[in-house]
C-alpha cells in the first residue's frame, strides 16, 4: 500500500510533462510582452511607423489645408489608414522575414513555444502601435486642426483602425513567408507605398485616371479607407458591410496561403 517508490517511478516517466493551462496562458502573455518591448525599444521600426503618418498629416492635412475643415477631416481618415498599414506590414512581415533568415524562427520551432503565441504576440504588438498612431492622428485633428468630430465618430475611427491592422498583419505574414532577409524592408515598401497611392490615401481617387479608379477595389487599403471615411462622416463609396466582408475574406486568404507555405518550408 505505502509504496512511494512506485509513485516516483510514475512521476519520472519521461513523457509525463503536463503543462498546466495557466502556464500555457503565461507563455502567450510573455511572448506578447516580449514582442511589444522589443519593438518599442527599436527606434528603426518605431520612429518611421509613428512619424510618417503624423508628419504627413500635419503637413498636408493641417498646415496646407488653410483651416479647411473638410480637407483635414478627409485626410484624417486617409492618413489613419496609411498609418495602420505599417505596423502590420513591417512589424509582422519584415520581422518574420528577418527572423526566418536569422534562425530565430527555427529556434522557436525547436523550443516548446505554443505555435499560436508567436503570431498572437506580433499581432498584439501591431494593434498597440496602430492604437498609438490612431490616437496621435485623432489628437492632431481635434486639438490642432480643430476638426469638429463627435465623440462617437472619434471612437469609431479609433476602433476601426485597431481592427483594421489585422488584414495587413495577414498580408505581412504572407509576405514574410515569401521573402527572406535584409532586402525585406525595401520589398515591403514597394508594396506598401504604391498600394497607399492606388487606394487614394494621398490623392483622392477622383483626381486619378479612370483605370486606377476601377482597380482601386483590389487593394485592402481602399476598403479600409472607405470604412474610415464613413466613420468620420465623410461621403464614401459602397456599403460598409461589403468593405468589411472583403477585408475579412482577404485576411482569411492571406492566412491560408501563409499557413500553407509555413507548413511546407518552415
Amino acid at each position, binding site marked *: 500500500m505505502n509504496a512511494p517508490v512506485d509513485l516516483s517511478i510514475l512521476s*519520472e516517466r*519521461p*513523457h509525463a510533462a503536463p503543462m498546466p493551462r495557466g502556464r500555457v496562458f503565461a507563455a502567450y502573455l510573455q511572448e506578447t510582452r516580449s514582442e511589444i*518591448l522589443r519593438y518599442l525599444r527599436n527606434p528603426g521600426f518605431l520612429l518611421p511607423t509613428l512619424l510618417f503618418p503624423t508628419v504627413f498629416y500635419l503637413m498636408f492635412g493641417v498646415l496646407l489645408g488653410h483651416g479647411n475643415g473638410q480637407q483635414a477631416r478627409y485626410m484624417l481618415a486617409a492618413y489613419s489608414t496609411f498609418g495602420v498599414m505599417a505596423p502590420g506590414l513591417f512589424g509582422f512581415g519584415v520581422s518574420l522575414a528577418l527572423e526566418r533568415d536569422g534562425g*530565430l524562427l527555427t529556434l522557436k520551432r*525547436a523550443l*516548446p513555444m*505554443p505555435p499560436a503565441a508567436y503570431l498572437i504576440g506580433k499581432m498584439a504588438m501591431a494593434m498597440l502601435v496602430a492604437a498609438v498612431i490612431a490616437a496621435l492622428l485623432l489628437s492632431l485633428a481635434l486639438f490642432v486642426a480643430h476638426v469638429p468630430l463627435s465623440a462617437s465618430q472619434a471612437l469609431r475611427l479609433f476602433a476601426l483602425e485597431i481592427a483594421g491592422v489585422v488584414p495587413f498583419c495577414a498580408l505581412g505574414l504572407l509576405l514574410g513567408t515569401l521573402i527572406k532577409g535584409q532586402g525585406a524592408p525595401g520589398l515591403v515598401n514597394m508594396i506598401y507605398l504604391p498600394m497607399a497611392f492606388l487606394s487614394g490615401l494621398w490623392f483622392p481617387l477622383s483626381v486619378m485616371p479612370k483605370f486606377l479608379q476601377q482597380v482601386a477595389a483590389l487593394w485592402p487599403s481602399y476598403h479600409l479607407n472607405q470604412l474610415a471615411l464613413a466613420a468620420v462622416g465623410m461621403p464614401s463609396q459602397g456599403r460598409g458591410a461589403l468593405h468589411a466582408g472583403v477585408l475579412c475574406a482577404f485576411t482569411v486568404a492571406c492566412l491560408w496561403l501563409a499557413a500553407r507555405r509555413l507548413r511546407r518550408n518552415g
Partner: protein
Amino acid sequence: MANDTAVLARLRGATKAYGALRALDGIDLGLRGGELLALLGPNGAGKTTAIGLLLGLVRADAGEVELFGMDPQRIEARRNIGVMLQDAQLPATLKVGELIRLTASYYPAPRSVAESAELAGVTEWLQRPYGKLSGGQQRRVQFALALCGRPKLLFLDEPTVGMDIEARRKLWQAIRHLVAEGNSVVLTTHYLEEAEALADRVCVMARGKVISEGSVGALRARIALKRVWCSTSLPLAEVAAWPEVAEARIDGDRLCLSTEHVELLVRRLLAQDATLSALEVRAAGLAEAFTELTRDDNILVQEAA
C-alpha cells in the same frame, strides 16, 4: 532513477535527402537517459540534419524518429528538451533576463531566472540588452536559454564556437553539472578535445552515416595507434619493414613511427640500437583517431619505403 537507461531519443533507419544530396543515409542513433553523446564529423557529415530530425525541424524521408517516445513535432515531446542552435539571432533589444523569462515560460516547471543565469554564468549581464554582448557572451546566454526549462535532454549544436578558453572551461563545467544531475546531452562539436573532455559516448558521422560509435576510449582503441619518436642510427627503410610498424617517416631529425604494438616496437628499437636517444611515446589524440576514421579509404597502413 528508474529510467536512467531508457532511450530518450532515437533515430532508426532515418534517411533525409535534399535534392540529389543524401544528407542522412539510413542512420541509427539512440540516446539513453543520463548520458552525454557527442556527434563528431566533418562539415556536411549530417550532424545538423540528425539534430534537425530529433527536434522536429525537418521530416525524415524514411525511417523512424522518436523523442521521448513521441513524434518530435508534438509539443509535449519538446517540453522535455532544451535547445542551443548554431546560429540564432535573438532579439537584440531584449535584456538577458527578459529572454530567459520568455523561454522559461514555454516549460511546465522551469528553473528560476536567477538559477538559470547562475548555472550558465550570465548573472552579471541579466540587465543588459542581448545585442550589446560579445559573441562568446551571447553563446553563454543561449546556453542559459537551453537549460532554463529544466529539460531532461539538451541539444547543444557547436556550443563553444566563438568562446575563449576560460569561457569554454566554464561551459564544460556547467554541462558536467547538468549530466551529474541525471540529465542527458546531445552535443555536436568540431572541437575534438570537447568531446574528449565531456562525452560518455562518441558517434562519428561521415557522409550521412554513423561510422563509429562507442566511448572515447573505445574509439581510440579502435584506431589503437601510438606514435613513437626517437633519434636512431637505424635506417628508415629497415624500420619501416618491421611488422610492428604501421607507418614510418622522418620528423625533423627524428624518426616518427606509428604502431598498434608499442611495447614490442620499443623493445625491438632499444635492442637493435644501443645508442638510441630522445625516445618519446604518445597516444594518438582523438583528433588523429578521427582523421583516420573519416578518411575515405580508411586504410591506415602505409609503407614508407
